[in-house]
């Protein structure tokens, strides 16, 4: 057993994480920045941070990930990283010709107290930033929040630096999609267009991290929200933020800066959350829900009713990011399943309340843990004490899946050992259908594998 060192006895831990269910802010900022067209993310810190983030994103997306680093030295840690960032900006604009550089900090540069706007001003004075090019930044100390916080901060930086207030509002709606996959972003746009709603989505990693094979290596793939679009967000009539943790800060900043009202919704994963998103679009853009979409929804409900006996009472363990967990939990409860163990390493006050609401009092045995000690080691200990039927979470669940012989549906970040997450959405009605298929595949395959010969069934 790979995790033979995991004991069933849960000991109170005061000072550490074992097999963390989170990672640090800068990678989230890097991911968000990749959703900006012709943007070069830049890591202001040691070289390793940038290398690790690029490697982790490469493993998840199987795409080249480009980002610069300030390559801190011992000297920079004493005297500050100003000269590194100045040199870096100069080099990046000269060599890689981005439209925008999105700088994020690291634990190192935060602690020594580098003032990024001041350094960028200096770079401007020195003429390191060519005419018509931009530098934006987000503070992303690794010891605060998690990778999701980093995403939220960089999305907000896009507003802070680029959104322009406009007296006249247009019909357009802004969407902040949250930390979801390129396929999800594409699906959300499709949903909006199908309803006849004009949207600006930021960040938007579709056509960046799911770029087609063209026989050429594109340093800047064609996707991503453009700078003119970001400027226009201030003229939109509303913003819909999907996911409280990842998207609310950007939407609220846009409201404050440009007076664009915002509504913060759950990620549209599962039936009810998608309903709320579609309804919000309908209300905000004053459009009708087309029959086509109604049919799409109807098919999801049809599958749920057809197969409900297989969902009933199944115990599920899930881990990952708060926004995903809230919507997934709600969906599982709607399916009459029992999300009994829920773990996120990402801190944030409202999460426990939201989960409680999603559980709707229907899973009294549910254990939820967040923040310190909320890690995959604890999750495994819970499962050892009382097993589950299904695991839903990132690739790090594969050890538990193997040791406990429990099926795993890969969902979230990172997925290091399968493809599909970049290409098939889990948001919207289409996404719900895919989740249903995955859940049923997992449960029924497990039943096929483990049922005694006499009760092995052909028809299920």
């Amino acid at each position, binding site marked *: 057993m790979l995790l033979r060192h995991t004991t069933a006895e849960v000991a109170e831990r005061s000072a550490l994480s074992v097999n963390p269910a989170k990672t640090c802010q800068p990678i989230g900022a890097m991911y968000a920045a990749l959703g900006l067209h012709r943007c070069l993310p830049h890591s202001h810190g040691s070289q390793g941070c940038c290398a690790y983030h690029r490697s982790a994103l490469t493993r998840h997306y199987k795409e080249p990930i480009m980002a610069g680093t300030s390559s*801190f030295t011992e000297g920079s840690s004493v005297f500050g990283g100003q000269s590194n960032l100045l040199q870096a900006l100069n080099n990046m604009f000269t060599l890689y010709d981005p439209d925008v550089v999105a700088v994020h900090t690291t634990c190192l540069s935060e602690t020594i107290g580098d003032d990024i706007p001041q350094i960028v001003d200096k770079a401007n004075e020195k003429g390191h930033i060519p005419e018509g090019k931009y530098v934006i930044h987000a503070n992303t100390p690794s010891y605060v929040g998690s990778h999701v916080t980093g995403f939220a901060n960089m999305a907000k930086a896009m507003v802070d630096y680029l959104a322009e207030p406009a007296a006249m509002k247009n019909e357009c709606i802004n969407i902040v999609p949250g930390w979801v996959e390129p396929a999800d972003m594409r699906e959300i746009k499709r949903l909006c267009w199908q309803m006849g709603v004009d949207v600006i989505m930021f960040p938007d990693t579709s056509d960046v991290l799911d770029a087609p094979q063209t026989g050429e290596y594109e340093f800047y793939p064609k996707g991503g929200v453009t700078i003119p679009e970001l400027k226009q967000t201030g003229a939109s009539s509303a913003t819909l933020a999907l996911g409280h943790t990842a998207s609310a800060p950007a939407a609220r900043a846009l409201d404050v800066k440009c007076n664009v009202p915002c509504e913060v919704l759950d990620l549209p994963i599962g039936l009810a959350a998608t309903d709320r998103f579609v309804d919000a679009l309908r209300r905000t853009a004053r459009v009708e829900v087309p029959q086509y979409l109604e049919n799409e929804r109807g098919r999801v409900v049809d599958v749920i009713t057809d197969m409900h006996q297989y969902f009933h009472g199944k115990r599920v363990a899930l881990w990952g990011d708060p926004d995903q967990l809230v919507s997934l939990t709600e969906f599982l409860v709607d399916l009459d399943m029992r999300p009994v163990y829920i773990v996120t390493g990402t801190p944030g006050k409202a999460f426990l309340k939201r989960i409680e609401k999603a559980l709707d009092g229907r899973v009294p045995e549910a254990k939820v843990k967040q923040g310190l000690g909320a890690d995959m080691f604890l999750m495994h200990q819970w499962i050892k004490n009382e097993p589950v039927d299904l695991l839903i979470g990132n690739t790090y669940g594969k050890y538990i899946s193997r040791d406990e012989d429990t099926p795993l549906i890969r969902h979230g970040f990172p997925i290091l050992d399968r493809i599909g997450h970049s290409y098939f959405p889990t948001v919207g009605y289409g996404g719900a259908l895919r989740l249903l298929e995955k859940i049923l595949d997992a449960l029924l395959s497990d039943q096929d594998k483990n049922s005694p010969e006499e009760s092995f069934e052909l028809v299920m």
Partner: protein
Amino acid sequence: METARHNILEGRKDQVHRKGQEPFNMACEKHSLAGSVSQRACVFCGSRVVLYPIADALHLIHGPAGCAAYTWDIRGALSSGPQLHRLSFTTDLRERDVIFGGEKKLYHALVELIDQFQPKAAFVYATCIVGVIGDDVDAVCKRVQEEKSIPVLPVHSEGFKGTKKDGYKAACDAMGRLVGTGDTAGIGPRSLNIMGDFNIAGETWLIKRYYERMGLQVVASFTGDGRIDDLRRAHGAALNVVQCSGSMIHLAKDMKERYGIPFIHVSYFGIEDMSRALYEVAEFFHDQDIVDRTQKLVRDEVSQIMPELNRYREKLMGKRACVYTGGAFKAFSLVRSLRTLGVQTVVVGSQTGSKDDYDLLRKLCDEGTILVDDTNPVELSRFVQEKGADLLIGGVKERPIAYKLGLGFCDHNHERKQVLAGYEGMVNFAREVYSSVCSPVWKLVPGRRTESEASGEAAAPTLLPVARKVS
């Protein structure tokens, strides 16, 4: 094309050399230019990859969760016993700890983990933040070591304190404190330590079997399938056999100084280097029996793999490769191995090569070969296209670039899935290169002509670079 506009940075000009052009004055071992998309990592990364395979130790990363998350079981360093090294332990420092210091947290974390997991020793990695907030990691380690009666070793791997190479040194320093603390009873004169093999895909096991067939006793492996107790008695061995020039040389030198144990440099990749390694080790012991056994081993192994190797060679003859490795030592072996397969190396570079390394690489390569130090994706893709390479050998960050360009790829780094060392490794390598370079999937790539189109006739091996769209 997008990249055509990008030029080599002025400050990097002397880190690129084309063989044939004079003078040869390769700049290297430089800190990367800020802002270039370097493929390099940090000090912590260096220490982590070297120590990670020690399977019965606790590896606690003192810092925010990220450093632990990104290095959680990413290296396929196999263990025949405990799997403790595959878990990810971190003090998960938060803002409060950054302000008030993380020593207390580190102490409690160590005590709790040692109580729970009963490791043979603990390594405590200092990350960037620890270097800045000034935690006295040494003092905490010392205290816990006394309380728990196991070695608790600080690893000074603050990310910004140099390059990956400095991380190797920090790892060696930590291991150096273990060596000499164990009982050397039962170690004979025909004995050695394997250094600088990390048992990726089981390579250390293979090498160990070779040495055992030669009649030699392997005392300790630094660090593939490594065990603390073996490391502690490693000073009883007669010889240190060092692979991977960067990572272990400090420890080998240290052991020579302290215990008078000589060391030799070897490489286990490719027929030539593998055989040379075994012969050099055999000669060291001045024992005809060992030499005879070695000759037989090499003869048997080589004759066993040659037929299959020749089949691949026929298919690969005239192909061109770009090699980009972490350390330069591996690049030497790869250039030779590729030559064995009829593949010409047209671009070669490393993240951490030294001047001597590049000098040797230059001698090894054909006229016109491009040598690069600490390259970046733009440069690399440009050189690959200019030289019409069919294959890229590199690590995780290079793989998707190769595929986007429609090139074959072979991972010769952490993520290799099968043994590439030794004789059977050479066959695996050939098969992997063949299966990627000659894969029919490249015909699906737009703008890439098929081989028969390029050469004008079907099935004939071609020396022409496969044309790719360049605009």
